[in-house]
């Protein structure tokens, strides 16, 4: 590697350390060297500006992905052998090494999450999910009468479970199943005359809801 050909060895060494000067992890001796050099080196100061921009762009916090993590863990549990014998309830034997891999449905969940993570439009991601998996979502061009009082909802991956639950309670809704492998919950609307269309429309307007659709009768209780 030849970081620069016309500078001193000290400059070449320091240039390599600049990213860790920016992320503030250098140890005291290295830090002192870099500080001393940078004071007198315009090239390194310019480099620091660029590195600072890169760091800033990459600093967004991890999405908690609470719902996705729950669904993923549930799926992994299926790979873990069931408890046996007299062990405590929260202790299970180690899983068999031949445990099955996550299926196609789990991968589709990741596709949707990845799209969300990388700022692809959420509706597009959900459309993709729908292409590969019969999620029981209705299309606008092929609708049947909705099941009385049920809607299917996909929440944003970063929406805390408690907030999702609170939102549903505010409309008299209750989760009756889910999430399925694509992260969709089936919600029953407890009302004298539930209106799934109106409820779904209301939910779609909420910022933490990626998708809401009335559920066909055959799809309830999947």
């Amino acid at each position, binding site marked *: *590697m030849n970081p620069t050909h016309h500078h001193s060895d000290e400059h070449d060494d320091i*240039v*390599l*350390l600049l*990213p*860790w000067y*920016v*992320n*503030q*992890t*250098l*140890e005291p001796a290295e830090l002192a060297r870099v500080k001393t050099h940078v004071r007198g080196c315009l090239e390194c100061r310019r480099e620091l500006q*660029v*590195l600072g921009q*890169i760091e800033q*762009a*990459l*600093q967004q*916090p991890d*999405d*908690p*992905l*609470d719902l*996705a*993590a*729950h669904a*993923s*863990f549930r*799926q*992994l549990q299926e*790979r*873990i052998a069931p408890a046996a014998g007299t*062990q405590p309830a*929260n*202790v*299970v034997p*180690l*899983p068999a*090494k031949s*445990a099955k*891999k996550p299926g196609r449905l*789990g*991968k589709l*969940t*990741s*596709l949707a*999450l*990845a*799209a969300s*993570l*990388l*700022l*692809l*439009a959420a*509706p*597009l*991601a959900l*459309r*993709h999910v729908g292409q590969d998996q019969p999620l029981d979502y209705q299309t606008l061009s092929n609708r049947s009468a909705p099941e009385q009082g049920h809607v299917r909802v996909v929440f944003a991956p970063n929406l805390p479970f*408690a907030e999702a639950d609170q939102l549903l309670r505010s409309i008299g809704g209750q989760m009756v199943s889910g999430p399925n492998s694509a992260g969709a919950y089936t919600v029953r609307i407890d009302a004298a005359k539930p209106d799934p269309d109106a409820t779904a429309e209301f939910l779609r307007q909420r910022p933490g809801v990626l998708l809401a659709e009335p559920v066909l009768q055959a799809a309830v209780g999947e």
Partner: protein
Amino acid sequence: MVRLAYSASMPMADNPSDGGDESSLLERIHAGDTKAFERFYGLYYPRLFRFILRITHRPDSVEELIQDTLMVVWEKSDSFDHSCKVSTWVFGIAYRKALKSLAKAGRDDSNVDFDEFAEVLVDPTPTPASRLEADNWLEAALSRLPPDQRAVIELTFHHGLHYREIAEILDCPENTVKTRMFHARKKLQSFAAAVSED
């Protein structure tokens, strides 16, 4: 900066906030405590999701790789020898599995997957999100780096690790980490310059 020892907000996690808590979780996992494993899972899922996706750019394999990584934690927690932080051990496992996955897929130029993904999803009407993505030159530039350079960038600037710890995760010499970073920086700057000229 998002540090590897930060707390997750997943309800089922108990927000362990430092390596000590993670070590105690690992000890319980070694004893077969599934509740501890669930906590650990919630703590690492979002971090691994981003890390693996950044390296592989293959969204169809992220879930599988996360599960495979954390399955190793479950099955082989006794192989953690405490010579490094728990997070270093876990990310090292994830990195190796991500590279194997790329090798198996026969492609380490990961542009293809997201391009294909976007083609499938393409909508003729630009959305704010798609416009934002188009404007995000850094994401575009990162996608053109090889996986090992993306890993160094991610672990440095997102996870805030010292190059020594990155070397442990990537299982390579410290100078290799510095060199990968140097070449990655130059490519990013070249890309930025090219974009600004357009």
